């Protein structure tokens, strides 16, 4: 028990909280954009696993983590375009298409992985990103190492939160964007191109979810294995609900889930006698409990999840 009171334990715990929350934050923000335009995308897990593979592969081939991340984003967009086309143009049920992505994208990813590395069972070590401490700020005790000594992608994720908040609440474009998710018909009469806005939302969603996936293989493990995403897409989905579709709320929710993940890993190291499966359950159980206590029936964009038939009156 003494280790719990150890100062280092706390710093380490907070540090990995920030680190573990990052992929969830990327994906949760992706979903925030998507749902604000009325598209419920439950295919995040699928997009992430595809982004994770392509990011890893391109990073490995080029040796440059930034190219890998960019490739992850592009592949996320590409795979999400299937969802976008079918749900926006064909008005297909969004949940079903989200599921289709969850089944299709991991299959495609493992196919490409096996083609590229021809069924080798050895783990292939990919590229990884170096931490860039922010001058001055990283020297502050406790706060410095926890918040200001990370890889650039982590700063990017946290920077996206205020950017998204300002965009959605303070800019005309953002308000137009939100109108599409609230009442598309009214938005259309005001001259907003609903279809275009929805496609934009899907592009942003795909890119961010792809980056979230690539983060896992480039910044977190630097290897690829099947099932690496481990339901983070769904945890992000609950973070959006828990965070009330607001960027700051989503950030807090992601930090909470990141904390559970970090705690789980720390506890595994700390008490090897506890069955590790029980500790690994913590993030999932925590998601359930948090939702059960804070989940409220009616909130979020009004037209969320509904198809928009433009020709219909």
């Amino acid at each position: 028990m003494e280790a719990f009171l150890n100062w280092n334990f706390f710093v380490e715990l907070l540090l990995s909280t920030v680190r573990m929350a990052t992929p969830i934050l990327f994906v949760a923000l992706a979903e925030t954009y998507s749902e604000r335009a009325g598209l419920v995308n439950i295919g995040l897990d699928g997009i992430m696993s595809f982004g994770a593979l392509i990011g890893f592969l391109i990073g490995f081939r080029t040796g440059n983590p930034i190219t890998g991340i960019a490739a992850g984003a592009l592949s996320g967009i590409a795979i999400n375009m299937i969802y976008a086309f079918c749900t926006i143009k064909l008005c297909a049920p969004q949940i079903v298409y989200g599921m289709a992505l969850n089944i299709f994208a991991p299959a495609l990813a493992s196919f490409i992985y096996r083609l590229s590395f021809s069924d080798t069972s050895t783990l292939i070590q990919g590229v990884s990103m170096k931490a860039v401490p922010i001058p001055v700020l990283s020297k502050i005790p406790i706060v410095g190492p926890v918040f200001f000594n990370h890889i650039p992608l982590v700063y990017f994720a946290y920077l996206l939160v205020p950017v998204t908040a300002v965009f959605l609440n303070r800019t005309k474009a953002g308000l137009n964007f939100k109108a599409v998710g609230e009442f598309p018909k009214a938005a259309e009469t005001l001259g907003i191109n609903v279809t275009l806005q929805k496609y934009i939302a899907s592009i942003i969603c795909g890119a961010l979810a792809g980056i979230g996936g690539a983060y896992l293989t480039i910044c977190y493990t630097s290897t690829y294995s099947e099932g690496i995403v481990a339901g983070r897409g769904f945890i992000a989905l609950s973070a959006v609900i828990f965070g009330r579709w607001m960027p700051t709320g989503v950030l807090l929710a992601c930090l909470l889930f990141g904390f559970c993940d970090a705690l789980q890993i720390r506890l595994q190291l700390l008490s090897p006698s506890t069955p590790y499966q029980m500790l690994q359950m913590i993030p999932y159980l925590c998601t359930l409990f948090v939702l059960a206590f804070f989940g409220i029936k009616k909130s979020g964009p009004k037209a969320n999840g509904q198809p928009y038939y433009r020709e219909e009156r």
Partner: protein
Amino acid sequence: MKQNDNLTKVIIPIISILVAFVIGGIIILCLGKNPIKAYGYLFSGAFGSSRKVAQTLVIANPLIFTGLTAAISYKCGVFNLGGEGQFIIGAIASIFFVTKSGMEGIPAILLSLLIGAASGAIWGAIPGILKITRGLNEMIVSIMLNYVAALFMGYVYTTLLRDGSVPQTYAIPDSTKIAVISKNFPIHWGIGIALFLAFAGYYFLFHTSKGFKLRAVGLNATASFFNGFPVNRYILFSFIISGAVAGLGGSVELHGKQLRLMDGFGQGYGFDGVAIALIAQLNPIGTAIVAFIFAVLRKGASTLQTGMQVPTAVVDIIQALVIIFAVAGTALLKLPSMKQIFSKQSVKKEGTNKWKLF
């Protein structure tokens, strides 16, 4: 109009499967192999002898259960994505029962299957209860419970019921194995249970008043509510039934095929079931057929890999493409502009509420 609907429900899955096969063939061609020869290997692997057909059925068996799980809940308008967790929990409950109780023979099997179904039902009821009482999204809850169940199974086979140094549980006693139909056709009787459930599910959904009400709740919960249907009770009911089917599936898989729990038991069956149910347009009998087609692909995939060095993942892609085309095809026909082409009747707004979730 009704005739037309039924026809498209059969045609869309067939066309989707054919198109997915063609694209799969193109992928195989891109790998530098002959697609026709490849499909020859695939089908001979699945149908080459009665023994192979039986093995294909063994693969199809759990998929029928999880497919029915998905179909029953979606018919009621709720998305039980927790088939995998319920499947695993059913198997865990059964293995505890048969290894600890000391009962043997047929009574043990029957009781064990019942216990498996009951545990699956309880596990499946959790998302239902949380949805009704707290308004939680049932998809997220059921997915989270999948991970919890899989991790708990890990705890069972590495610690609680571990058999020696290998991370797996004890095998079930020999007398509690489900018998095979015949030596030359080695498929266990579990397939009988699966097929019975498929027909029973079809009868229940389409030929009983409870089934009708359940579908009505799925199509329009608000209208059903104002018609005096106990909507929440039907939602919970569909979760419990679908959970019980999955739990029973896990138990059957344990007693008929796997005989013990180990890493990877039931992995992916939940999502496969979802895909199968969607391709089958949520029809229970169709679910059994599509599950069999999936099993053919899987059984054939290993022959394909050994015979022609085509990675088995090609088959995963074909499966995933089938679902994408099947759903796109259905959606396409629902578009107002397409409806006008296909029927002279006036286009009415329908189903916009159906997929609303949050």
